């Protein structure tokens, strides 16, 4: 199989329950184990923008792993999150992959609705997360053990639109989970790899758009090295420099106003006054 090539530079965190599920992705995405991380097995690609954590089975493990990863990467609020795993379904074919349109659980009252992305050719389904393996296969839903805990935790630190779940059907009424051989897990993931890669690319793309919106404006580093700004002034400086950049003023504000003859307050005031005189060019 050809390895997926990603063109977007955003950030995505993959959360998976089992090592056997994760192996095909680790191989396809060329992820390497981060040996400094002990609490959960964590894998990263060489550019550091795709991470994969193996949480262990069930809601508690999944919640702990997501919180752990969130804590480690709090400097990337634009990161997207994807839970990939297996699920049971009353009638769906084994190996079929669904993306979550709604996530409910037997232990949470609130349901979660991932924002539906453009039609990527995958079928959507409601996921019902349960606390323990069950012989029941409710009609029309995917049954898993992690999705609800994943979403309810991740939504505390990511925008709803950057949280998604993919589920591959591992068992159904005809072939229940009690007959399931975990050795077949890698095959289930391998055969869905092109769609998984497309989904990850879409999330990286969205994450990248978000990251670019919040990138520090030009000249910020230079100015903060020159003067020490209070938090309020720093905020004001970023806003003014962003205006400067947006209005496509080519010169550096440091040269335009001879910053060496001004103090930081006078500089901010001069910068603002100057920007206020500029008429919008459409």
């Amino acid at each position, binding site marked *: 199989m050809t390895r997926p090539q990603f063109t977007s530079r955003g950030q995505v965190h993959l959360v998976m329950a089992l090592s056997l599920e994760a192996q095909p992705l680790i191989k396809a995405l060329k992820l390497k184990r981060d040996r400094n991380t002990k609490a959960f097995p964590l894998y990263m690609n060489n550019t550091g923008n795709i991470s994969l954590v193996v949480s262990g089975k069930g809601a508690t493990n999944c919640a702990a792993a997501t919180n752990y990863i969130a804590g480690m990467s709090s400097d990337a609020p634009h990161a997207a999150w994807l839970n990939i795993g297996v699920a049971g379904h009353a009638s769906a074919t084994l190996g079929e992959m669904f993306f979550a349109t709604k996530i409910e659980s037997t232990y949470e009252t609130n349901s979660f609705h991932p924002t539906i992305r453009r039609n990527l050719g995958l079928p959507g389904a409601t996921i019902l997360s349960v606390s323990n393996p069950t012989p029941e296969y409710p009609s029309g839903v995917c049954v898993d053990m992690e999705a609800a805990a994943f979403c309810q935790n991740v939504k505390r630190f990511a925008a*709803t639109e950057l949280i998604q779940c993919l589920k591959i059907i591992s068992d159904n009424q005809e072939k229940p989970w009690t007959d399931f051989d975990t050795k077949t897990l890698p095959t289930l993931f391998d055969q869905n790899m092109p769609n998984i890669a497309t989904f990850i690319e879409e999330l990286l793309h969205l994450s990248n*758009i978000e990251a670019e919106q919040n990138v520090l404006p030009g000249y910020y580093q230079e100015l903060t090295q020159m003067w020490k700004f209070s938090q309020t002034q720093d905020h004001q400086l970023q806003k003014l420099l962003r205006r400067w950049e947006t209005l496509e003023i080519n010169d550096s504000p440091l040269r335009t106003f001879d910053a060496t003859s001004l103090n930081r307050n006078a500089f901010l005031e001069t910068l603002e006054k100057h920007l206020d005189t500029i008429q919008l060019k459409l």
Partner: protein
Amino acid sequence: MIDTIYIEEALKDHPRTHAIIKRLRPTHIISIERYSEIFNRKKQNFRIQKRNPALILAQKNNRLVLPTPEGYGISTQKNYYFSHMLNCLYDCRYCFLQGMYSSAHYLLFVNFEDFTHEIEMTIQQENEPVTFFTGYDCDSLALENVTHFAHEFLPLFARHPEHLFELRTKSINIKSLLQTEALKNVVVAFSLNPNTVINALEHKAPSAEQRLKAMLDLANHGWPIGLRFDPLIDHIDYQKNYSTFFKQIESTIPEASIHSVSIGPVRFPAEMYAKIAQLYPQEKLFASGLKKRGQMVSYTQEREQELTFFARTQLGRWISDHKFFTCLPEAA
């Protein structure tokens, strides 16, 4: 166009729900208890949602008809508005809706009959002609192909010829109006700007020429036309661009077809402005010329007066004085 529809459980058998599903043939239909499960939740990102909004079919139970904010109106003392839908197909950078909700999904209230009832009740309580505005929280016609809103409400408007109704739009979706005999008490009011502004700030909206063509077709059919230069956008060459555009309108639309003209420079409630500017930090509109004045963010008073005076003078050369109204929410 819309690939996902969320439907409140109680509306799954509503005839309007069935009709909309038939028209749209969405890829995903998802059942919800109440629209608040999806719409305007915490931690939603308007900017991402706007890339691919879903349609939510819901029921609105109260506050169906409301008085307009101070400063808005055309000709009558009392003014009301009602919103059968929240959010808009277009993506205009100056629109207050960007700061109003954290969701960009289209929220359509399908209980049109309840709106009709409340409008009738409001009319009964009034002793004088009033105006009802639509298109305050959405574009009145942009999703007409899906909602059939105008088509379904025109009979109500026709029953009350002494009251005025405004459909506010940028859309060229006028088929339902052209298929109906024109109503003299229904103003089809077009939000207008020159193409320079449209191209920069009114994303996904029809061009000036397309809007003019729709206005002309409606005028020829007998519908009263509203011209809404609200907001006016200050920019380099604004005089040249607006002046050329005004001449284009003059040469296209007969003065007799024009019911009213309103003019208002861009203004945002300060709190809403902060949210919108944060959503689009690299937007030119927010980088130039807007200042906080009291509770509003706007151009300086002098600039506002200059813009308004310019537009008023240019248009006043061929449009009667009594047709002009100014839309200006309170600023300091």
